[in-house]
């Protein structure tokens, strides 16, 4: 018996030693952008290199059920006046070059962002509300006046202009920057593989600049939560287009691929167990120039609100790559209110009545309008063009009006929106952090659309700093009711993405959450650290 035990023990040890060495797991995944400048999320967000964020550890992040989870921070607390948050970092975190990761690296990251022309600087004002942020980014105050302090190596103090009960959610986009490296190399540290240092679950092995493809490897220095369970992650943004990704997946060259509408039926038939739906927490809506005719009339706007058959839109022309949107907040998102969403019904009679009240019975006398949407790829690229055509037909049918469609490059569309060069737009928006203030903020006090609705602004401002969560959500719901009553927007659809995954993929990340969604497309920190491969 003893000999047998010894034999079994030896076998177990031998297996344990050899299997990891043999089973070098590599996952080949699609990326999203074929161009990227800096491998540094805190230098540029819009132009960052592929998965720059996976290389660093954020203060906190979201898990599969969209719950906030501490990452670099171990805990946090809010002061009695609600204005100061204290984050305690986990001891023992290090950079891949062996230097300790400290509170200074986080504070430095934001100080540099505030002064260095960071393209995401708006976020730390709009979402973070950090004291002095606006003044420092505009150059009217010194960086030392920012409400940020490294109290000691493991303690960060953040002071905000108003109480920010949701600040911990905001820190999901707060990554450290290696001050000791930037002091030596400047921003160029993030331009090539040899000088990039990491603090997160993955290291950078290679970066092909021609298509922004990267190879990441499991970090052997990262000690925080959510360690990688795979050895290598090859990300190729050229696989991001389903037209390229699916053939590669079928040939066994990629472990999963996103699908376009035409591919969904084929893939569903062939891989009934491999189909995954991914929440992206986004909303497509119609917005207006509220100051010019005909949309300065609330009746016209309300007519449009009731003239959209969202269920038909998503199930027919969009082939279920989006779900109907009744609220600016997507289902499952914090603060989502089903009662508000239920108000957005398709009611052609009501729509016609509002048009008549506005002085355009059956659309008579209504000027020809042109709706502007922006040209883009990804899920919006699949959704918006057919949706625009559907709306065109529906508005003709229900409201009796002629709406032309114009597609513009992103920059021109944004320019048109900001400078009110047109009066009606299809606007897509995707969340930046999981809190209702994110979506309500886009219409707050000017915001993205130049809306100034005093009553709405007051409610949102109050809700933003309210520390009782039930009251907060109630205030946001009241604010959204104002949006509905005044017809400020027409919520259209919430996009989702559909992907097919290989049956060799496993782990917690490969199965849907309670709402039926996986996170192949978002929440990369959760997804890639909870994915395994046989």
């Amino acid at each position: 018996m003893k000999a047998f035990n010894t034999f079994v023990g030896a076998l177990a040890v031998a297996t344990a030693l050899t299997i990891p060495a043999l089973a070098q797991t590599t996952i080949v995944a699609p990326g999203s952008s074929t161009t990227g400048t800096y491998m540094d999320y805190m230098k540029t967000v819009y132009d960052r290199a592929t998965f720059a964020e996976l290389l660093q550890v954020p203060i906190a992040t979201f898990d599969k059920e969209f719950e906030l989870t501490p990452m670099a921070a171990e805990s946090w607390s809010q002061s009695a006046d609600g204005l100061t948050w204290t984050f305690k970092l986990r001891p023992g975190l290090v950079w891949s070059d062996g230097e300790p990761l400290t509170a200074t690296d986080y504070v430095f990251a934001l100080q540099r962002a505030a002064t260095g022309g960071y393209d995401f600087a708006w976020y730390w004002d709009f979402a973070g509300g950090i004291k002095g942020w606006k003044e420092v980014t505009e150059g009217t105050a010194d960086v030392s006046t920012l409400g940020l302090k490294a109290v000691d190596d493991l303690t960060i103090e953040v002071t905000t202009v108003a109480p920010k009960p949701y600040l911990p959610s905001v820190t999901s986009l707060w990554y450290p920057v290696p001050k000791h490296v930037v002091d030596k190399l400047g921003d160029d540290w993030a331009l090539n593989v040899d000088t990039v240092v990491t603090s997160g679950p993955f290291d950078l092995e290679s970066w092909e600049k021609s298509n922004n493809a990267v190879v990441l490897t499991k970090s052997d220095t990262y000690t925080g939560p959510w360690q990688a369970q795979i050895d290598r992650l090859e990300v190729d943004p050229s696989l991001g287009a389903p037209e390229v990704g699916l053939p590669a997946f079928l040939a066994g060259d990629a472990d999963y691929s996103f699908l376009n509408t035409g591919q969904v039926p084929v893939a569903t038939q062939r891989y009934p167990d491999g189909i995954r739906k991914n929440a992206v927490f986004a909303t497509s809506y119609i917005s207006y120039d509220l100051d010019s005719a005909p949309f300065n009339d609330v009746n016209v706007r309300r007519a449009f609100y009731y003239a959209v058959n969202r269920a038909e839109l998503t199930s027919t022309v969009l082939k279920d790559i989006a779900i109907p949107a009744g609220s600016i907040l997507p289902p499952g998102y914090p603060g989502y209110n089903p009662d508000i969403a239920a108000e957005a019904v398709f009611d052609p009679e009501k729509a016609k009545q509002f048009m008549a009240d506005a002085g355009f019975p059956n659309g008579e006398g209504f000027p020809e309008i042109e709706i502007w949407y922006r040209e883009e790829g990804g899920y919006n690229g699949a959704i918006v063009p057919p949706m625009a055509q559907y709306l065109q037909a529906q508005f003709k049918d229900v409201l009796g009006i002629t709406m032309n469609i114009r597609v513009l490059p992103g920059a021109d569309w944004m320019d048109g929106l900001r400078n009110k060069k047109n009066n009606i737009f299809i606007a897509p928006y995707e969340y930046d952090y999981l809190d209702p203030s994110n979506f309500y903020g886009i219409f707050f006090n000017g915001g993205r659309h130049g809306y100034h609705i005093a009553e709405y602004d007051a409610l949102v401002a109050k809700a933003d700093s309210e520390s009782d969560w039930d009251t907060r959500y109630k205030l946001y719901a009241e604010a959204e009711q104002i949006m509905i009553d005044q017809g400020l927007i027409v919520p259209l659809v919430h996009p989702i993405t559909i992907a097919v995954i290989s049956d060799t993929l496993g782990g917690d990340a490969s199965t849907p959450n309670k709402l039926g969604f996986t996170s192949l497309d978002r929440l990369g920190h959760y997804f890639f650290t909870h994915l395994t491969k046989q």
Partner: protein
Amino acid sequence: MLSFILRRLVSVAATFIIVSLIIFFMMHSIPGGPFDANDMPVSEAVRAKLMANLGLDQPLYVQYFRYMWGVLHFDFGVPYQSPGETVTQLLSRAWVPSLVLGGLGVLIGAPLGILLGMAAALNRNSWIDYLASTLATLGLTIPVFVTSMLLILVFAVWLNWLPASGWGKPERWILPITAYALIPLATYARYTRSAMLDTLNRPFVTVLRAKGLTERRIVFQHVLRNSAIPLVTVFLPMFIGTATGSIFVEAMFRVPGLGAYFVSSIETRDYPLEMALMLMITFMYCIAYLLSDIVYALINPRIRVGGGQ
């Protein structure tokens, strides 16, 4: 001949300057700038800082002269979308896969196309002719992304002989080069067929036949040479197409080449890269047509310039 070349060189320089002016001002007349495309606007202070860093706060004519002065010194600036390198470095890096893909595509496709066209012309109205014409017509009418898709489906997904896409290893080159080669193949097959038929019907061929030359000698030594003019006309511009890359083939097969930069530089308002790419194409077309003219003169004395003598 020399004065002809000199005159042409002067016109190349003039074309170059005119085109550079047009491109530069068209590029800047597109609304928006490199920092406008985002969901949330960059604040004015941040934008001003970024624009000043790139010299975009200067008047346009200053920017133009500054850029062209750099161009004269082979300095094309730093691409906004890849700040770690110069435009020249980026081009030399991304150009390699495009050149391999396009170069091999033409070098394989063109001779095959010529052979196919010859076979068709020499066997007029036979099954070879019909096959060649069908192939050529399909090659020209089916978009290259469709043929790419078919190649991937057959050779990667069904037969599993070759990787579906990617670059780096030679076995990954086969499908994209095949897809690419179909274009010159089809073009050349059609041009060769019609040019050869045209020549074969000329009286001098009858004379050669009457003189008792072998058919092989007639075809290769006389007919082919006399049919070469249209082939030269299409060859050089086609070679430029290869050097600039095929956006579709590169995208379908994940080739990290130059093609995508033509689109992304315009989309992201990457002025230095956009300008460099356009100037590069202009320059290459100028040179290609110059070379074409010289080659015409060499292979056909009848159209040699000033050839009345």
